[in-house]
């Protein structure tokens, strides 16, 4: 397969439509109609219809997804943080189906161990964990596992500030990667007993006598079922059933001077381990949870959650929103949810169903997702062949709204249109300048960049600026700072 355009996709001239529409109307119409905008999509070839002004949004991107090469590029953008030229060549020669197989079946690759993890109390800069992860994302031969790890980091989220132990944060990242494409049932047990999570949502201090509701509530609301599928009584009852978990015992302790002569005795961990269950802190007796009464332990809570149809729908809907389209329709989500539930919550089955669904590669889903800041920055680094950008990327996420291990709140990061504000777009452009300034030596040729990075589907503005750019630096700047490159 090559990147040469198929005959029917050769350039059309730009055509004026809906001159009368104002910016504001376009904005309202575009967002109000959401994915329904496909109904007024101006497809290449249907030239006659272009002359007639239409209701709804002004214009839309012309989908190139009729060609397999475009489908492969979209697949890598959505699953692998983009691609280097080599990664793209290899996927193009494999084709779409084989690439999906490879993504699904490639096991996660463990990052190199982080030496700082043995620091007493996990008192080392979170920037070290951020940079360590980004280095791995940039280098790994299995980028889909990293994309899924980021997805789960936003879903089963934890915040380094409250966890207050970066060793636990590092462990959580290792665990999320290992479990990223396994089974929701075992994942939920690992999430519940993860030390960072035990601290972040306070399960580590909850007792049967006086339960803390934080984890109990978010387990149902944010991690599995979604709001309105359980009662306040369910929150209280599962808080009892889940109580008893504590942080693991450290391997040793060390006395450390923390500040001007103040010393503290801090835990030191040389090996990763989950939380431990202390039956003396557990609740003894029956609970009534999600309609059934009796004794209930943590596995019992998880199994009852998995027995609720809402769970598969909630996870499938979130996956669709992150990987397919901003507003997936209910029928599509139900189809995915049914597949997921029938597979006993196997993530490989769900993700294969997502990536091979017609919706994933349909013209209607083209450029309907906004790259997250991490997505965008890693893709830019890959496009430029830069491997030295992890520090810049770790620092630049904040202004775009995404600092790894520091989500805005317990719901993780919002997505798509929430990534767009006056602050974030400026920061995205500034990152491109920073990334270009970090390139040592000559930049890779930009002559192919618009086709390889932007599918050759350009707004007239982008096309014109590229035509007028005087050198590769300017062409790369336009390509990476363009609205096209912010989308996937």
């Amino acid at each position, binding site marked *: 397969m090559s990147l040469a355009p198929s005959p029917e996709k050769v350039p059309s001239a*730009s055509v004026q439509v809906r001159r009368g529409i104002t910016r504001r109307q376009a904005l309202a119409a575009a967002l109000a109609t959401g994915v329904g905008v496909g109904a007024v999509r101006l497809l290449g070839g249907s030239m006659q219809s272009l002359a007639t002004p239409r209701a709804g949004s002004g214009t*839309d991107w*012309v989908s190139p997804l009729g060609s397999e090469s475009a489908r492969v590029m979209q697949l890598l953008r959505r699953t692998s943080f983009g691609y280097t030229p080599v990664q793209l060549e290899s996927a193009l020669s494999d084709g779409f189906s084989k690439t999906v197989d490879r993504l699904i079946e490639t096991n996660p690759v463990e990052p190199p161990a982080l030496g700082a993890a043995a620091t007493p109390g996990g008192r080392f800069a979170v920037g070290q964990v951020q940079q360590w992860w980004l280095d791995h994302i940039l280098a790994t031969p299995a980028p889909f596992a990293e994309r899924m790890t980021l997805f789960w980091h936003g879903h089963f989220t934890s915040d380094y500030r409250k966890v207050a132990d970066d060793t636990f944060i590092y462990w959580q990242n290792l665990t999320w990667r290992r479990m990223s494409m396994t089974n929701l049932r075992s994942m939920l047990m690992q999430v519940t007993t993860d030390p960072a999570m035990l601290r972040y949502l306070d399960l580590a201090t909850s007792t049967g006598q006086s339960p803390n509701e934080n984890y109990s509530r978010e387990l149902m609301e944010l991690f599995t079922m979604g709001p309105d599928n359980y009662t306040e009584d369910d929150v209280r009852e599962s808080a009892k059933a889940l109580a008893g978990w504590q942080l693991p015992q450290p391997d040793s302790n060390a006395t450390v001077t923390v500040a001007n002569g103040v010393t503290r005795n801090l835990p030191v961990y040389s090996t990763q381990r989950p939380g431990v269950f202390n039956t003396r802190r557990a609740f003894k007796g029956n609970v009534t949870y999600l309609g059934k009464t009796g004794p209930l332990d943590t596995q019992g809570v998880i199994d009852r959650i998995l027995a609720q149809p809402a769970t598969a729908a909630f996870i499938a809907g979130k996956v669709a929103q992150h990987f397919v389209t901003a507003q997936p329709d209910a029928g599509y989500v139900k189809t995915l949810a049914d597949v997921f539930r029938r597979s006993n919550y196997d993530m490989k089955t769900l993700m294969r169903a997502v990536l091979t669904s017609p919706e994933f590669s349909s013209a209607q889903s083209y450029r309907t997702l906004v790259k997250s800041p991490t997505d965008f920055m890693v893709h830019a680094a890959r496009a430029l062949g830069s491997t030295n950008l992890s520090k810049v990327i770790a620092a630049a996420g904040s202004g775009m709204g995404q600092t790894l291990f520091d989500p805005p709140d317990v719901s993780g990061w919002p997505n798509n249109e929430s990534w767009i*504000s006056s*602050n*974030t777009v400026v920061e995205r452009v500034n990152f491109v300048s920073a990334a270009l300034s970090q390139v040592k030596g000559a930049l890779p040729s930009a002559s192919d960049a618009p*086709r390889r990075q932007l599918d050759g589907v350009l707004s*007239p503005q982008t096309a014109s*600026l590229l035509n007028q750019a005087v050198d590769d630096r300017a062409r790369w700047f336009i390509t990476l700072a363009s609205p096209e490159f912010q989308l996937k």
Partner: protein
Amino acid sequence: MTKAINMAFPYRASAQIGINKLKRRDFLRAGLVFGAGATGLAAGYAAVPDAFARAVYAAKLEGLTNDNVLVMIQLAGGNDGLRTVVPLANPSLHDLRPKLSGPMVSQALPLNDQFGLNHNLGAIKGLWDKGKVAIVQGVGYPNPTFSHFESIRIWETGDPTRRQVDGWLGRTLASAYDSNGHPLTGCACGATDVPGALRDLQATLTVIQDQKTFGFTGGSEVEAAVGALYKGTPGIYGALFDTAIATATETMATLRTSAASYQPMAAYTDKVQLVYSSKNQLAAALQLAAELIVTGTGVKLLHVTLGGFDTHYTELNRHDDLMGYLDSAVGAFYQDLAAHGMSDKVLIATWSEFGRRPKENASGGTDHGAAAPLLLIGDPVKGGLYGEAPSLTSLDATGNLKYAVDFRSVYQEILGGHLGADSTKILGASFDSVPFLKAPVSATV
């Protein structure tokens, strides 16, 4: 609007490019990096020029309302009302909170013999003593949800039925101020994304995380090129992207002027000791708010956030820290506004998605609750206690405090009495009055 083209290399440009009938903005001097052609192209980029926008804005405002300003401070995570406005003589408090109640009562700053402010709210207590703080107690809504995100959405949209999608301040912008798209009318300071309260598809607003870094690396050349790049962008996000860039560029121009003429007249500091550091630099955000207000940028609705109030554990130190941080930032903000002669225009209001459970948990914290007090601060308020403190013995079925004042009563007073906006239209209904304003606009017009 032009159609996106599916192009082969080399790219074909539309003949329409660079010929823009909007008023031109002459900020480009020598955009040579991107080629001479780009200069003309970039010059065609025009949001609404500064002076133009302001003139239109002024005309729009004339006769409509006033030059009052609203600053909403979100206490994100669910602020503990009982530790903010402390019941001083309620024997039930100790029963509910054996660990948490002791020092909070003994150290509280008494407002009367029944209630006191958290001991770290010294500056706000000083304003109370001058009659500049109104406290509305027992604020909530029917059938409360204990989900952060559901309740945040209810407060942001002003709709407990959860049908409304636009924010109450966003709707205010759109209906009362925004038809000309002045980007600074609504501004979120210290944030990277648009707060839900300000969100409305018809509203233009600005988001500035940190004024010091808000600008394009590479200056006017980059600004011009990016302005040219983000124009007529196709697709469902096209207008959002283009508006964001146009708004940012416009705001940068305004900030260049305002930063040059603004001198802070108070000490703002974010170097506050917190049990764990806050994501939100509240003092810096309020300092930016003060700059925008005192330099006459036309700002009307500002939103800032202080996070960390979800005190499920070790609440004692954490909540006290947060109160102290809030107090020092608000104290400096008020002082700055007053020194610039602007404090009579500005109403500061706190909000939080819910209060906390009266009964403490085993982690030395409190779980999600319901009714809580709101603070309204500034010269426009008529100081005092409003609403009704919830009973600590007659709790609701979930063990939470019952509300006495619908939060939309507070919104109504802010919208109608302070901003002079049509609160019934914006909120969709009328609510009981909470007359915490000294001279409500509707009474003077």
